[in-house]
């Protein structure tokens, strides 16, 4: 069993629109998706969301404000799961609510140092 990192990317700068009810429904979808991974005993760490505010430090000590890559590819959060293979981990990523918002989930195996 190995740990895998899910990196959630999307255009997080455009503030989430919608009524409080719609926001609530979105939260429930995230919780249901995380809950379904946990119900399979595959959740290592729920992880966290990342604020869209940030800075980048570059080699000559210059500091720039974000965004850091393509605005659509902003990292919005991460989760850790465990699986037998990268394919199983990717299977777990299916149903992630970010996909319905036009975002994507990057699945990476964690190499323990």
């Amino acid at each position, binding site marked *: 069993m190995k740990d895998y990192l899910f990196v959630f990317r999307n255009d997080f700068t455009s503030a989430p629109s919608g009524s409080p009810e719609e926001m609530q429904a979105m939260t*429930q979808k995230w*919780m*249901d998706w995380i*809950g*379904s991974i946990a*119900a*399979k*005993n595959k*959740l290592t760490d729920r992880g966290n969301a990342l604020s869209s505010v940030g800075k980048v430090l570059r080699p000559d000590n210059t500091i720039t404000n974000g965004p850091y890559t393509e605005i659509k590819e902003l990292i919005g959060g991460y989760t850790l799961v465990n699986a037998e293979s990268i394919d199983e981990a990717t299977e777990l990523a299916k149903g992630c609510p970010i996909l319905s918002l036009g975002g994507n989930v990057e699945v990476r195996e964690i190499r323990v140092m």
Partner: protein
Amino acid sequence: MEQEDLIPHLFRTEYRKITAVLCKLFGISHIEIAEDIASDTFLLASETWPFKGIPENPAAWLYTVAKNKAKDYLKRDSLFEQKIAPQITYNTSGTQEIEIDLSEQNIVDAQLQMLFAVCNPTIPAEAQIGLALRILCGFGIDEIADAFLTNKEVINKRLFRAKEKLRIEKVKIEFPNDSEINSRLETVLTTLYLLFNEGYYSSNQNVTLRKDLCLEAMRLTHLLIGNRATDKPAVNALLSLMCFHSSRFEARVNKNGETILYQDQDKNLWNKELIMKGEYFLNRAAHGKQISKYHLEAGIAYWHTIKTDTKEKWENILQFYNQLLQIEYSPIAALNRTYALSKANGKTAAIIEAEKLNLNNSHLFHSLMGELYTEIDNSKSIDHYKTALKFAKSAADKSVISEKILALGSFKIN
């Protein structure tokens, strides 16, 4: 109260008090001496009361006899000189006069301190429960054996080994200090939770015994709430959970001792007073920043006290299970979460999820699948129930599953 009922009744309420106070006085190495003195006290009562009549204040009589027996023991036993005397001197900070304090406050303190001593992570959970039942609840060895569905020898051995371990570890009968209290309390709560479940979910046919186990778990949890240092949100959440569950005690078993499933229960038999108590302690639990698994389970149990199925009810239960599984995975929670999912989002969605749970060797999994396929694909439903029947062990489980198969069979003909 009739005389023949009085002694067993007093045994239930007073034996544990005397034992706890004497254990605290003698130290963890001499639990047996404390138990023996308490037992001898009741033996004397059963021998003399039928002839001399019941004393005016039976409990006070027992306390006096226990005190005298303890003092006599301390005077004549040479072991006392070597081992117990220094311990007592230590406990009473140097005074020579032996004080045996059976005041209400000292009894409560002694019981709480014994609870912490017994719920020690160095001994297995089963042994912790056994010792708690023996010393803090005054259960007989045969009752404990009955509760664990085993025989007296097994329990005697288990308790003996546990006492030996506590002796070797030199466990002190004292309150944990402030820095330790949360981690120590966690073990205590786990043991009380297991003790309650032992009564609530046991396949034991002895309904009175099962109820007693639940009541004892609640009494000990309540003892923690009565003490300022241990009156924590998680403790209140645990008691709330116990109140909600036990509110259904009268409704979940029929006259023949058979299980009545939640949806078939007569909700008029649900105990409203216990439901209100559960709500009271749930409110008291709503403090601080930490959500324990007891909070989440109490939340789930709260929604179960509302019988009518609504989207809101099952959505709330589903979300609590989502959170619970993130704190601690268990197959039962995974299955219950999937059931809640079927109620909140429909059976089809739940079937897809259930198939990925990887719990195919459990009768509970196949019972759930049987339930989910009912009215969607009844033949699949029957297949799953039949598999469940193969995996089921207890007679109660088997009879519930058989009835489901029977109902589905007649459903098909109609």
